[in-house]
């Protein structure tokens, strides 16, 4: 009798609820701290902190990082962990200016590297001492259209027609967007008797049709993928990867005349501890090795070494390719085209 009374006194349901809640919390906490429990984790690997512009993510994580990790393991018997972050080139540059601990950064355009010098993050234009003046790889700018090309888009000029919606990355944060502006301007300006005016007209026509602006080339693609617009201006690499993985139902249109973007590697010396120097240097050297350059080609970038580019049969042909050096380099192109023509004339004209 007495025992039963005690038995009834206990609120079993409440007890059960409390116990299950407590064990849930304990389970969560255990899960959270698991890798940091002594004995569970093996010797912490060496780390390398890399910031890169948006479209590099997949190639770095799946291609370059494992290859370099294997090489370092073979040579030194140490495992290296890549601590990385990928976003629009402008975003990365802003983060570097604010002081993120990047040891190596791969920027979409040299202009962002120059901004790092101006902000005091880099002591001077140190990337010029790297192979190919810091240019890691290239890729031409192309147009992506819906399957079957329903709007009949064959060149940049077609994007200026009425009833076309263009998805464009935002030049404020995206390096790709700045390349795209040069591509659009150049496509109009080259082979014209009045280049500046022809370039301006084509830029204006295309920008009248911009329906969505995304923070990075990657984000612009995601917007296009989600059904925005009729055309997307983007890196060939991005377009090739997407059609290869069959993720994006789209067709690549190769403009007759377009720019090859050149991507710049910088080492952020103030963030590199003395003990890290050797590792960072080995990694940077690795980036221009034959192995790394062929990985770039495999992932749809064009190598700075032309011989490797035959390995990828899906690369399209461009009749009239041009480079930023044709406009006198990035500082001048930024001043004369992006600022003077796109920002001050085109944006004003379309009332943004």
């Amino acid at each position, binding site marked *: 009798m007495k025992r039963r009374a005690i038995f009834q006194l206990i609120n079993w349901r409440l007890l059960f*609820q409390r116990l299950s*809640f407590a064990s849930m919390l304990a389970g969560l906490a255990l899960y959270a*701290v698991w890798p940091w429990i002594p004995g569970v984790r093996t010797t912490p690997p060496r780390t390398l902190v890399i910031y890169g512009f948006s479209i590099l993510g997949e190639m770095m994580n799946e291609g370059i990082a494992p290859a370099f990790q294997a090489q370092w393991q073979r040579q030194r018997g140490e495992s290296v962990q890549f601590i990385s972050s990928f976003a629009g080139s402008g975003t990365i540059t802003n983060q570097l200016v604010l002081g993120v601990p990047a040891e190596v950064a791969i920027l979409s355009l040299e202009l962002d590297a120059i901004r790092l010098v101006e902000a005091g993050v880099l002591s001077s234009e140190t990337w010029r001492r790297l192979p190919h003046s810091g240019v890691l790889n290239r890729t031409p700018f192309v147009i992506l259209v819906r399957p079957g090309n329903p709007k009949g888009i064959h060149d940049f000029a077609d994007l200026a027609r009425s009833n076309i919606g263009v998805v464009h990355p935002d030049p404020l944060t995206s390096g790709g967007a700045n390349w795209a502006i040069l591509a659009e301007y150049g496509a109009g300006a080259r082979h014209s008797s009045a280049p500046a005016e022809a370039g301006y007209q084509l830029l204006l026509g295309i920008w009248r049709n911009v329906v969505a602006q995304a923070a990075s080339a990657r984000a612009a693609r995601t917007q296009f993928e989600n059904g925005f617009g009729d055309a997307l201006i983007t890196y060939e690499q991005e377009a090739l990867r997407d059609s290869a993985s069959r993720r994006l139902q789209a067709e690549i249109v190769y403009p007759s005349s377009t720019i090859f973007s050149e991507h710049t590697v910088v080492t952020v010396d103030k963030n590199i501890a003395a003990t890290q120097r050797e590792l960072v240097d080995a990694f940077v050297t690795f980036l221009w090795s034959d192995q790394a350059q062929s990985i770039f080609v495999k992932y749809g970038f064009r190598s700075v070494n032309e011989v490797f580019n035959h390995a990828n049969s899906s690369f399209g042909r461009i009749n009239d390719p041009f480079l930023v050096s044709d406009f006198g380099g990035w500082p001048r192109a930024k001043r004369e085209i992006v600022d003077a023509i796109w920002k001050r004339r085109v944006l004003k004209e379309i009332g943004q």
Partner: protein
Amino acid sequence: MTTNTQGNSSRTSGLLPVSFLLMVLLPLLLMPLGAIYVFAVRGGLSGFLATLRQPDAQFALRFSLLIAFSTSLLNGVLGTFTAYVLAKHRFQGREALSVIVNLPVAIPTVVVGTSLLLLWGPIGLLGQFLDPVGIQPMFAPFGVLLAHLFVTFPYMLGAVKPVLDELEVTYEEAAYTIGANRWQAFRFVILPALRGGLFSGSLLTFAHSLGEFGATVMVSGNLRLRTQTAPLYIFAQFEAGNIATANSVAAILATLSFVLFFVLLRFTERRSQRLT
């Protein structure tokens, strides 16, 4: 008998407002949440588990949980202390202070992140003196914790302070008259009364910390395997077009917060039942 039928009739007449509520909530809340789960399991259960097994997804979840636990713990202590001081002491500027400690509710979290960067970042007001000696709170796990403490501060306070305000001073005074010191009065009189507030405050803080995005994206530097929280991971994966991966982690977070708020709801219900 009569009360019973009345109860039933009021329940049936609730059909109209309930279905109207559902009609509003379906597209607003329920369907978007459902979409997360649909996309998360598109690649089958094995695909769902495979995306979760990736080391950076594992890290992001663990890191988020660690930050959420630490935030609840620290803000539990800090929030209770603040509430106690604000409720029990009369001093100049008390009103202003009560407003200030509640500000994080209204300030956009991105602004919180920026303000922390401008203070503790390597080029910040204080950070520029710390940077040369090798102390860098920002772009490190500690910076994420700071941001979460800031953003979730009002939730603990909001849960504890009303209880303290309503607590009869006489109990505390009675404790003093029988010789209790300040700590004993707090420990044996006030703290037991606060248990409910502490519990719901901690849960709220935990849930908010788990979902925090705006401030974290600014102060963390978004480094995978170092400072990337689960929401940042979801955003990065979604931006990269890996929608299934993003949604697998999102589904875990959604489930977790569902359970947390369910517990919270049951708890507050039981308390109000006990009080009436």
